Structure formats: C-alpha cells, structure tokens
C-alpha cells in the first residue's frame, strides 16, 4: 500500500479543502441550473407530444412549432386511414387562444374585471382521445358538450383558480370565457406546457372550433396515425407520403402540391427540440449558459487547485528530486482533483434538485433532474477539475526542481 498522498492532503487541511469543495460545488450548481433550464426548453418541445398517441404524424409543411402548427385539410387524415398498416388516423386540434380568469366566488358584482391570458387549447374526440395518459383518456369522456372544458392543473395561478394557487376540485363547475364564448370547467387534468404558454385546456372538436373561432373544423393542425402491430413504420410513412403527394418546398410546383408532411415520432422530437433549443432565443440563451457556467467553473476550480499546488510546490519539487516521475505527481494531483469533483458533486446535486423543484413550482418551467443531466454534469465536473489540476501542474513539469524550493 502506497501512502495515499492525495487523500492525506485533502483531509489534512480541512479549511482549504472546504473552500475548494465550495468552489467546485458552486460551479457544479451553476452547470446544473443551466442544464436544467435547457432541459426545460427541450421538455417544452416534447411534453405535449410525449402525451399524444401516435406512430406517425401528419402536419403542414409550413409547421413552425407546437403553438404555431398551421393547418391542412382534414380529408388527408381519412385518406391516410385507407392504407394498409394504418390502425387509426385521428385529427388533433391545437391552438393558442385567450382565457379570462374566472370570477372568484366572493367577488362583488362589478368590481371584477377578469384578466385575459393566452392559453393553449387542444381539441380531441372524447370517444377516441389521442392521448396516452390514462387520467386524460378517462376525463376526456366528460367533454360531452362543446361548452365544456378541462383545465390543466399546471396552469399558472393568474389563470384564476378559486384557491388562488392551483386548479382543483373547487373549480369544477366554474364558468368563464374562452375565445369569445362561455365555457364551463368540468374537470382538471395534468400535462404542463413548459415555456410555450402558461396554461392549457382541453375541449372536444366543436368546443375547439368555438375557442379558436378563426379555424374551421375542416382544417386540422395535426393528424395522429397509429399503426397495426407488425407494420413497417417507414414503409407506411412512405406510402402515406406517396399517397398525399411528395413534399416540395423548393423548385417548380408539381401538379398536386403536397399540403402534408409525414413524420415519425423521432423526427418530430428531433425537429421540435432543434426548433426550441437552437432557433428560439430562449433555448440559445440557456445553451450559452451551460458554456458560461462551465467556463466560470473551470476558472474557480483552477484558482483553488493552483493555489493548493502552489502552496505545496516545494514538497512536490522534493518528490521530483527524489526521483518521483511526472506521472506520479500527475496521478496525485488528478486523484485530488477527482476526489474534489466527486465530493463536491454530491451536495451540489441535492441542492440543485431542491432548486429545480423551487424554480419549477414558482415559474412553471418543467425542470427535471434526469439521469442524463446528472451524469453529464458529473462528467463535466470531473473534466473541469482534471483540466484545472493539469493546468496548475504545468509549472512543476517545466521548471527545474531547484527553482521551486
């Protein structure tokens, strides 16, 4: 057993190690937050789609993103349904409209002017809902009238829940205005909208036509195709696209210009994430934020580690003079760095977890600690410490030992 020098050094000077850990921890939390924000933007892009039941999606070639999906003729959905391999092909309506916060029960007549809020309204067939979550499939059955709606419990408090915080049992039966008609809340559901909007509601197609009165029911936003078991997804995708006419965004127009694009779930996800993360300012800000956090982290950890090494330069130089190789010295410093990274990481992930919870409940951003984020940040933390440690060692490698005593 060799003397565990790295460990001894860390344990010996508790104050210095605590400072180093605080530095590492701070950097790690910074990275965690930025990753969390970025994750929230990504999640915004996908969480509604994740809740929808489909293998292939039909949508307009001019589709921009979730809350600006554009439309295409409803016949296309029924045309697609005629192909072999297609089990079901459902229309799905989605649009942004306006919601007036309901009047609180204790408000006096005349002094309540309900605030207007932008809300995502989704229209689906109560008898054949296009949703995956069992709760939504069950509750959608209540949308028996075009003036009924379900409100998302994750909608923010300024949408006017009666307890002032969150929609729930108490709000069932409350009436308000969506678009320009009166609706009644018949139940609640939970989905979340991320950064796209602050609230969401569900209606049946006729209700949607009332809420988004500018869009005729013959024009749908999305077509959700499910396949029969065993069908080859790419074959069906090509078959539908062939049937409906190839997409043509460039070149001279063909005889029958395609008004529908057929995409698999993966293609939808990738494009939506790219759209939100790379092309919206929000996504870009957080993307840059990760790099900035990493840079700040390296600066802090480098400062801490290089001071530490500078303080022990004479001792390290003595080891070198004894005949210890640069390899040994590197391994000591790297062990020290990795230990710092690991020990700094543990409290940081716990603190970040708490911060995620606080931020997502305060702002509605869907921040979630995933294995992916946790492992990426762990990797970055170790990389950050190792790079800083090596940079701090440079002097020891280059100089003659005699100059370091």
């Amino acid at each position: 057993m060799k003397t565990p020098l790295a460990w001894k050094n860390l344990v010996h000077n508790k104050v210095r190690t605590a400072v180093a850990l605080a530095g590492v921890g701070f950097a790690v939390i910074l990275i965690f937050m930025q990753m969390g924000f970025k994750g929230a933007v990504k999640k915004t892009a996908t969480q509604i789609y994740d809740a929808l039941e489909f293998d292939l999606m039909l949508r307009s070639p001019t589709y921009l993103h979730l809350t600006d999906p554009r439309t295409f003729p409803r016949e296309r959905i029924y045309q697609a349904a005629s192909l072999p391999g297609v089990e079901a092909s459902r229309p799905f309506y989605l649009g942004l409209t306006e919601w007036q916060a309901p009047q609180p029960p204790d408000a006096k007549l005349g002094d309540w002017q309900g605030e207007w809020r932008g809300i995502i309204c989704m229209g689906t067939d109560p008898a054949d809902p296009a949703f995956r979550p069992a709760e939504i499939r069950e509750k959608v059955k209540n949308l028996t009238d075009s003036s009924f709606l379900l409100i998302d419990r994750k909608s923010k408090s300024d949408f006017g829940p009666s307890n002032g915080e969150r929609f729930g049992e108490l709000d069932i039966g409350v009436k308000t205005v969506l678009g320009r008609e009166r609706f009644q809340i018949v139940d609640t559901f939970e989905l979340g909208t991320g950064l796209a909007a602050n609230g969401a509601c569900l209606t049946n197609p006729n209700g949607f036509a009332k809420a988004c009165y500018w869009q005729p029911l013959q024009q749908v936003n999305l077509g959700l195709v499910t396949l029969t078991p065993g069908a080859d997804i790419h074959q069906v995708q090509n078959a539908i696209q062939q049937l409906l006419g190839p997409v043509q965004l460039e070149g001279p127009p063909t005889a029958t210009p395609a008004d529908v694009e057929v995409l698999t779930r993966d293609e939808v996800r990738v494009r939506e994430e790219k759209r939100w993360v790379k092309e919206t300012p929000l996504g870009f800000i957080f993307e840059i934020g990760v790099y900035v956090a990493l840079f700040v982290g390296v600066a802090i950890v480098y400062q801490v580690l290089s001071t530490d090494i500078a303080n022990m330069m004479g001792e390290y130089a003595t080891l070198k003079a004894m005949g210890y190789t640069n390899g040994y010295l590197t391994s000591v410093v790297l062990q020290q760095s990795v230990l710092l990274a690991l020990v700094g990481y543990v409290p940081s992930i716990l603190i970040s977890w708490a911060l995620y919870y606080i931020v997502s409940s305060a702002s509605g951003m869907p921040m979630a600690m995933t294995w992916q984020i946790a492992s990426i940040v762990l990797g970055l933390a170790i990389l950050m410490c190792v790079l800083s440690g090596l940079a701090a060692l440079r002097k020891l490698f280059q100089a003659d030992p005699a100059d370091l005593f």
Partner: protein
Amino acid sequence: MTTATPNLSLPATSGAYADGAQLPKTVKVGGLNHFFGDGEQRTQALFDNNLEVRRGEIVIMTGPSGSGKTTLLTLIGTLRTVCEGSLQVLGNELNGASRDDINHIRRDMGFIFQAHNLFESLTAFQNVNMAAELQGISRKAAKERIEYLLTRLDLGHRIHYKPNSLSGGQKQRVAIARGLVHRPKLILADEPTAALDEKTGREVVTLFQEMAKDEGCTVIMVTHDNRILDVADRIVNMVQGHIRSDVAVVEASVICEFLRQYPLFAELTPNTLTDMADKMMVRQSEPGEVVIRQNDPGDLFYLIRAGHVEVIVEEAGKSEKVAELGQGQFFGEAALITKKPRNATVIATEETTFYTLGQEDFQAVLDQSKTFESELRSVLAGRT
C-alpha cells in the same frame, strides 16, 4: 630516453594520485559553466569548474554566499539542467541526459535541502517513507530503517507526529532521515546542520561518516558550520563562481608531513606548508623517463609521492649514480635557489608520481622564512 613532459595539470592536493590505484569517481565535473537568465539578463554563475569526487569521500563546499556552491550542488543533484561542460554523476553524463535517466540517477541520491519541504499532511514516519516507497524497499525493512534513523536523530518519541507539531530543528532532522533512508550512493546536503544544535549536528555528520565508511556513500555538503569541518576528506572553496581551491585534507597533510621531516622545511609554519602543498601540481613519469637533465635550466621543485628515481651525475664524460630517491624525498631545489643549470640527471626507475612546485611559487616559499635560505644552502652543501 624521452624527456618527461608535464602530462597532467592537476593540483597535488586534489588527492587524485594519492593512492596510486584509481578509485571510481562518484562525481566528475569538467569545464562546467552555468548561466542564469536569458538574453540581456543572462549572467554567468559558474566559471570553468573542475572537480572530482571519489567514492566514499566527504566533501565540504565553502565560500561566501553567492559564490555558486549551491548552484554547483543542485547541478550535481540533477535539480538544474546543465548548460555547458561535462558533469558525470555515478557514471552518467548529465549534460543532455534524458528525463528517464535523470529520474533513475535521482533515486541513487539523497538530497537534504535548506528548506525541509515536508508534507504537512504526513507524519514524520510517512514523510520519510515517501523516499523508501519509491525504491521498493519492503515495508518491514523500511519500517526498521526509518525507526532506526529517526531514533538516531533523537526523534524516537516524535515518529508519528506531523510537521506542525515539530520544531524547526526536528523538521530538519526528519528531512535528513528522508535523505538517508534509501541508503543513497551520493548524499547532497545544503546546510544540513544550520537549524541544529551542536549535539544533533554532530550526530548528523557522524551518520554521514558511518554511511561513507560502511557503505561507500559519497557526501557533498555545503556548509558554513565550522564545527563540522573536521569530517571533511576534501574542502572545496568557491569564490564568485570559481573553484578557488580543492584540497584533499589528508593529502595536504601527507605533503606537509613529508616536507616537515627535512630541516629545510621544518621551521615553516603549518600555514606556509599548506600553501606550498596547495600550489603543487601532479606530474607522472614512466620507467626510464628522464625527469630532469643535467645542464638544463631549472624550473621545478620535485617531491616524490610514489615510486623511485636515480640521480646520475655526469663528469668528464663519465656517468656516476650518486643517489636513489623514493617516496617522500625531494630534488630539483638546487637549480632554483642558485639559478644555475641542473647539476644532475634524474631518471625514473619505475612508474613515479611527483608533486611539483614552480620556480616562482618556490621562491615565494623561500621568502617566508629568513632562516630558510641559509638552511637550504647548508643542506645543499651537505649533499654535494
């Protein structure tokens, strides 16, 4: 017969030829120059240093601060990169040596620095063990050796203390134990006794002596501590980057002893004798070689360190052997004093080593003593 030529330019007191058979050299410094800084700032710290240190020798380097002692020590210790000249340590040329070679050589050396440089996080034992571990010494052997050394250095009761609960002198002694634990072939020490009291300082140099005697370990020490000068086999004095003198203490006293036997030199003070010894150079002759020839002008004074010569006087075309001289005897003084040509021919009968003194230096010695010249004249008178 060939004429002897000064084939070597080594000082007599270097001790290089004292024992005839050549012992291996632990350190060989040849024409070493060293510079600090670059460009305009470049200053020369060492000028044409030459030094040979034999196995088992204890060398003390002295000189005012800034004279280059520590620079030379760290160069020998591979802790600086050699700029110019040759530097051989333990049989390896350091000028241009690869990093692997250097690491290898370092493991055969024990370095004791002015700054103790102990890891604050490790105990005295663990600090010393860092040096033992590197050599792959077994745990048990290392433990025994470390405990032995620390106990010898009066730290038996502090073995498992960390540096911050040790005094300056105690830390210094831990650093010394660290430098000795792996039985290095070469110990390099920079002011090892500076922080120690007389008793512990003495114990440290006694340890050095034991290692030199028992294990053939060579010790090179920079020190200002006059209390430990007596352990030196050789004293190297440096001034402004030059090696001003390099004296094998024993050899210098051997020369003095030789000279003192003669009434001619008996009255000289030890200082004058030592000066004389210092200025002597080594010269060697093959068997049959003519060392001096009758009627040649006289230029050198000869002291025989080893070997034998015949003195032959030629008179009226007839050669007559008048004397045979051996170790400790001298010749060649007459021509220097009388400023006349040589009055005899001297031929080496076997491989012979002489220590020689030039005319000017010889004259300087003569001037030291009023009685010397008359003594010498009477000696000369007695011989002829």
